[in-house]
């Protein structure tokens, strides 16, 4: 059992004991251990590391830096204004018990295509702080997911924090599953209207080998908003349908126990259209996060 109390100590132990499994909330790893799917030589417990369970504003207040140990419950309680879509996604995760333990960093380290925070992190162009004794590097979220449950993390690296640009305009997250709690997403979608740049961000979950970005949908919406970001009422109604269709096209889903590929494509088109209509409504009403 390895139990560092400082971040420096955690990185040293990570490099000295490559067979140890990092654990924080344990909501993924303990399931694998309980079912005999994982037998790590030992655990590297990060729950006693100082200063990783909080958030701060960096880049002159433009970016929220979320510590690796911060629970979903605290993200909901403290960041629903600065990171509304991330807080929305966090509300859909598991149950109160799971949200009290689970973390965005753990979600990233597992790198499941169905991870609920991933579509939001894509839509917000987040960056992952990966650190080892060799140094700190920032991984753009577009480069982070390299395959099903595979990420760009090196074996000696730990996720120290996630950097999420603070919302400048409406954000939405939506997820389809058989009930309101304890659900692995059948599909999920996140939309970010960044009015400062301005640009459109998207993220798709559970519909491909990794979380995906719907680039053509982003481009189409950006072109159609063009110089009318202040007057979204002028956006053509067909835009919603086209946007949804392009979101569905960007996915490469499979048939599995949670849903068929055909259903997933259909549901994504619906989620894309709905998220856009909610976001445009917010834009029209000036409901822009502080």
């Amino acid at each position, binding site marked *: 059992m390895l139990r560092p109390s400082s971040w420096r100590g955690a990185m040293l132990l990570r490099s000295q004991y490559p067979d140890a499994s990092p654990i924080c909330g344990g909501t993924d790893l303990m399931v694998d251990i309980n079912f005999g799917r994982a037998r790590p030589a*030992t*655990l590297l417990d990060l729950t006693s590391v100082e200063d990783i369970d909080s958030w701060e504003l960096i880049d002159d207040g433009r970016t929220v830096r979320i510590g690796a140990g911060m629970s979903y419950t605290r993200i909901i309680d403290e960041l629903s204004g600065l990171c509304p879509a991330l807080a929305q996604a966090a509300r859909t995760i598991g149950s109160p018990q799971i949200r009290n333990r689970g973390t965005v960093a753990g979600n990233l380290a597992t790198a499941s295509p169905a991870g609920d925070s991933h579509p939001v992190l894509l839509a917000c162009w987040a960056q992952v702080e990966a650190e080892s004794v060799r140094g700190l590097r920032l991984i753009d979220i577009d480069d982070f997911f390299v395959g099903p449950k595979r990420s760009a993390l090196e074996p000696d690296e730990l996720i120290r924090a996630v950097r999420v640009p603070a919302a400048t305009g409406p954000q939405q997250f939506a997820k389809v599953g058989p009930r309101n*709690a304890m659900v692995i997403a059948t599909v999920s979608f996140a939309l970010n209207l960044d009015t400062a740049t301005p640009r459109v961000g998207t993220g798709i979950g559970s519909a491909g080998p990794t979380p995906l970005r719907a680039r053509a949908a982003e481009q189409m919406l950006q072109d159609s908003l063009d110089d009318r970001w202040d007057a979204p009422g002028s956006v053509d109604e067909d835009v919603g349908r086209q946007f949804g269709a392009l979101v569905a096209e960007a996915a490469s889903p499979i048939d599995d126990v949670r849903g068929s590929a055909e259903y997933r494509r259909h549901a994504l088109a619906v989620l894309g259209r709905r998220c856009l209509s909610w976001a445009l409504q917010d834009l029209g009403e000036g409901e822009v996060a502080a």
Partner: protein
Amino acid sequence: MRVNVTVNGVAHSVDHVWALESLLDFLRERVGLRGTKNACEQGECGSCSVYVDGVLVCSCLVAAVQVEGRSVVTVEGLDSGGGMHPVQQAFLDAGAVQCGFCTPGMVVAAHCLLADNPDPDDLTVREELSGNLCRCTGYQKILDAVHLAAERTGAAP
């Protein structure tokens, strides 16, 4: 390895704990507290709900070694006098128990809910107990029990 932990106010020092052992197994097999139930072992059912440092968790998803130096409260410790906590009494009085297997987890989760929100509406109770499964009651009596407990504890000065 050795784990030092306070459980229901009592300090325990337990040797020979397996490195990958869950807090659930630790509580049941090493401390001998069998109120915390083992059902799904994947965080789906909530029957193993306990407090760790005041936070509601599924004990099957916490490694026993992670509670070193921390404080755990189980269903057996909700009433510091060793008797029946008002939430437990309300479950009894409302008939919110059939087979009883989910009940300890339900009671701990309801206890946590009422500590944060002494007078929750139905939607709040459903959301806060969404991580606890009951396969017998259909949940109505459980909702009744939570409201009954809220009434009684709210009425107390």
